[in-house]
């Protein structure tokens, strides 16, 4: 495989230098070889994908106007509904669930003439930071197969890193795009809340969930965002075009931001591993050398982000996941005694441990007598964190910090200690609480040759500038071009 970017491949397909069928077949050849090692996919659709690719080729040959992703093989996280295959959320409770409709983002990918090759693994219902909570499959990090890919979009980031697709969609509730992107050495963007329709994304924390692209390059990220962004009448929380017009995120991408002011919070960064910190500092130097200035910012409420997040996200999850009860669809316990047992046993047998833990946490937080002390207080903290960002962005264009305090950790290393696992998201969670966009871009490797990610956060609906800032760095570095060597 020649590791073209999605955009490069699209251009070649459009110019008929290569056919989509050839590219798609090559992807499936690679999947056949690599997927048994990586385990990125829950399902793949070879026949359907090649058919779609052939259709794209035919239409290109006929001179038709093609979509922005013409013929490009992409993958979708398996918590987005598709009328084809299953939509499992990596949960036993939905292992055989066939959605009756396509998520809006899936419709948009198809309308852009993308070729969907498969649906990727995740932590069950996107709850986790290592993809180890998948109830259906184990995904490993392509850079070191004894390590986790991060999560919850670990299947998507592993697939992109291992060259099993050209780009993928993930979802990010507390860092689930950025953290695995960082751990797998790819680009991952969590857009502003409301930028991309959530219709058809199986909800975890509705006020935090956001779909975003996982790609090899910043340019691909801009391309994917152009395809999936925009108001959707089916999602009341998606922002209308007047408030947040969807720009052509590619148009100005190569324009460096002049007089760029980067906000940094050294005390926060101090919590990260030394090698991570070093890489971030190196990245900041590169920005400084291209004329940016560093401004220290104060994030007084950042420390409370994880606590607030685990109240808000679990409270919403406890309600969002109430529908999986064995009554209407999904797993139902065999031989229930009565209808109460349909509920209790189906849920006890169908959900994994982490999902149950979060449902219990959230149920508790919403219980009468505890609501004010937990949920309401968490909402107040959320507002304070939002305020911290607003104040910070008065002084700077963006904020840079690590994505994850560590590089990829060993499989099983943190599974016995949920709190330790929760801390993997310490740098990413605040953006979800504030609703602002954040991107993870490759910025180096540690001494074990594990990728390190730089996180850049920007004001709400500032994706265009955010991508330009990220692109400034990517054009001066080669980290994103490095590939893991698997048993090839």
């Amino acid at each position, binding site marked *: 495989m020649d590791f073209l970017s999605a955009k490069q491949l699209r251009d070649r397909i459009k110019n008929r230098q290569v056919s989509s069928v050839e590219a798609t077949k090559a992807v499936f050849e690679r999947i056949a070889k690599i997927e048994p090692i990586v385990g990125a996919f829950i399902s793949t659709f070879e026949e359907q994908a090649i058919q779609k690719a052939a259709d794209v080729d035919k239409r290109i040959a006929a001179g038709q106007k093609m979509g922005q992703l013409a013929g490009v093989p992409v993958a979708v996280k398996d918590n987005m509904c598709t009328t084809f295959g299953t939509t499992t959320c990596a949960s036993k409770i939905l292992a055989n669930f066939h959605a009756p409709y396509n998520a809006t983002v899936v419709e948009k990918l198809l309308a852009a003439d993308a070729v969907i090759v498969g649906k990727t693994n995740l932590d069950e219902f996107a709850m986790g930071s290592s993809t180890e909570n998948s109830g259906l499959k184990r995904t490993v990090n392509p850079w070191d197969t004894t390590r986790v890919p991060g999560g919850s979009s670990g299947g998507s980031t592993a697939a992109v890193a291992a060259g099993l697709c050209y780009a993928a969609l993930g979802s990010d509730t507390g860092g689930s795009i950025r953290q695995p992107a960082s751990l797998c050495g790819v680009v991952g963007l969590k857009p502003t809340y409301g930028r991309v329709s959530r219709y058809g994304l199986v909800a975890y924390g509705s006020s935090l969930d956001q779909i975003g692209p996982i790609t090899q390059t910043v340019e691909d990220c801009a391309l994917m965002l152009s395809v999936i962004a925009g108001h959707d009448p089916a999602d009341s929380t998606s922002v209308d075009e007047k408030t947040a017009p969807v720009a052509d995120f590619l148009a100005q991408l190569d324009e460096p931001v002049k007089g760029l002011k980067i906000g940094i919070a050294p005390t926060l960064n101090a919590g990260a591993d030394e090698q991570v910190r070093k890489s971030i500092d190196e990245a900041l130097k590169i920005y400084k050398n291209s004329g940016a200035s560093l401004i220290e910012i104060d994030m007084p409420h950042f420390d409370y982000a994880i606590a607030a997040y685990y109240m808000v996200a679990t409270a919403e999850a406890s*309600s969002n996941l109430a529908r999986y*009860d064995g009554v209407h669809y999904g797993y139902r316990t065999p031989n229930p005694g009565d209808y109460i047992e349909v509920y209790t046993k189906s849920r006890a047998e169908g959900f994994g441990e982490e999902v149950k833990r979060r449902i219990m946490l959230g*149920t508790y937080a919403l219980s009468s007598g505890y609501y004010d002390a937990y949920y309401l207080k968490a909402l107040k903290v959320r507002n304070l964190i939002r305020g911290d960002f607003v104040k910070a962005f008065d002084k700077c264009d963006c904020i840079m910090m690590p994505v994850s305090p560590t590089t990829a950790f060993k499989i099983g290393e943190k599974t016995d200690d949920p709190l330790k696992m929760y801390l993997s998201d310490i740098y990413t969670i605040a953006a979800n609480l504030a609703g602002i966009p954040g991107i993870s871009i490759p910025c180096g490797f540690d001494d074990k040759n594990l990728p390190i990610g730089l996180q850049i956060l920007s004001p709400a609906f500032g994706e265009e500038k955010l991508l330009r800032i990220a692109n400034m760095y990517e054009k001066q570095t080669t980290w994103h071009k490095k590939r893991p060597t698997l048993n090839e």
Partner: protein
Amino acid sequence: MSKLDYKVLVGLEIHVQLYTRTKMFCGCALGFAEEPNSRVCPVCLGMPGSLPVMNKQAVEYSILAGLALNCQIAGFTKWDRKSYYYPDLPKNYQISQYDLPLALNGNIEISLADGSLKKIRIRRAHLEEDAGKNLHTAGNFSQVDLNRAGTPLLEIVTEPDMESAAEVRALAEELQRIVRYLGVSEADMQKGHMRFEPNVNLIITRAGQQFKTPIVEVKNLNSFRALENSINYEIERQLERFLETGETMEMGNKSTRGWDDAKEVTVLQREKEEAHDYRYFPDPDLVPVQPDEKWLIAIKNQLCELPLKRCLRYIKEYGLSDYDAGVLTETRATADFFEEAVKCNGDAKRICNLITQTGLKIANEKGCKVSELGIPPLQLAVLAQMVKEGLISATASVTVFEKMTQSKSTPQQIAESLNLLQKSDAGELEGIIDEVLKNNQQAVEDFKSGGKKSGKARGFLLGQVMQKTKGTANPKVAGEILDRKLSQ
């Protein structure tokens, strides 16, 4: 048993199904008695990833009803999730409104049997989605029909201001008229468009001490009759129970009883008010509603004169009886039709008679509204005028009315063609009467003899005149001429 001094307290919870085209949060059409699960989509089925979108019409209808009930309309209102597990509730939470209802602190005026008016306070009115229906007709298992799931309901809660079953019925009927006037609900109790759940208890005074009986909530009331009878039954039952046990109201001893329509008794359903924890929290999938001045004014403009006010005006302005005014104002269409006819310079009393005695009967037979019989209000006014002027008899007006529903001819044309115009021409009538007197000498003599026979003879002679004129003689004019000639 010594007679106890007691006061009845009844408050109502009323669910009014709104007459919108589609459901509360999706595009499914509302239906009744359709094939089970034929009016459903991913949203009202609570499918993974689906999202609700608010039905603006339902909110407008609710605001309109709130205004008609003299409520304050909230400047800020939101949607909350009410969590409980039941097979007819697909998401296992209901989207409702908890602490910030759409309408607050109103009242509804009702007319009591003695002609006095009473104001019943409205505590709140909020909008929510209905659940589906569990069917237990299939033997060893239950079935769920979700056609009704997601239907918009306006829940109206009154203060416990009603002091008798009759007052409750008066309120229920008044509310039915109001929502029908506003066009916000079909309010058909048999179809479950209006569901009343009274909370009943008594304040008993014995030996100068007051005792409150435990509150009972009554369910399964499918008619006004059932509503009234169930409360009368409860009053008796609670009195007896108090005498037997002396039990009074305490925390947690509210019970729920179901009305058995066949046996005319209430049956215990739930002994104690379970300590339900619905874990309300704001629905993150929906945005708050903030009705602005412009919108409120537009809705206010849709208000109309309400039935009770209109009824009282008819009594005062047109001198109609309570009964007639009540019949005319029962539906807005009838009242509007009446008033339009009156506006055409018609005689109110006679128009009222035509509508109440003939029009409603024909409309009822045809299954339509009086206003839909095809009679222009102007022509009705003309017909009333003809009766008033003695051009046709009241009996003949019925025939003319009937014909008017079948043809476009004017009442004069119809009366003429059917030879129903009364002979009021004194000259012509005198000739006929002379002839009758000549041919019935015996009767003339009987009349002149005075006494008992006299009245009978006059009636006979007048009857002969009517017969000769085939009923077209104006009985008033003919009687006057006859009397004059007999006294000569």
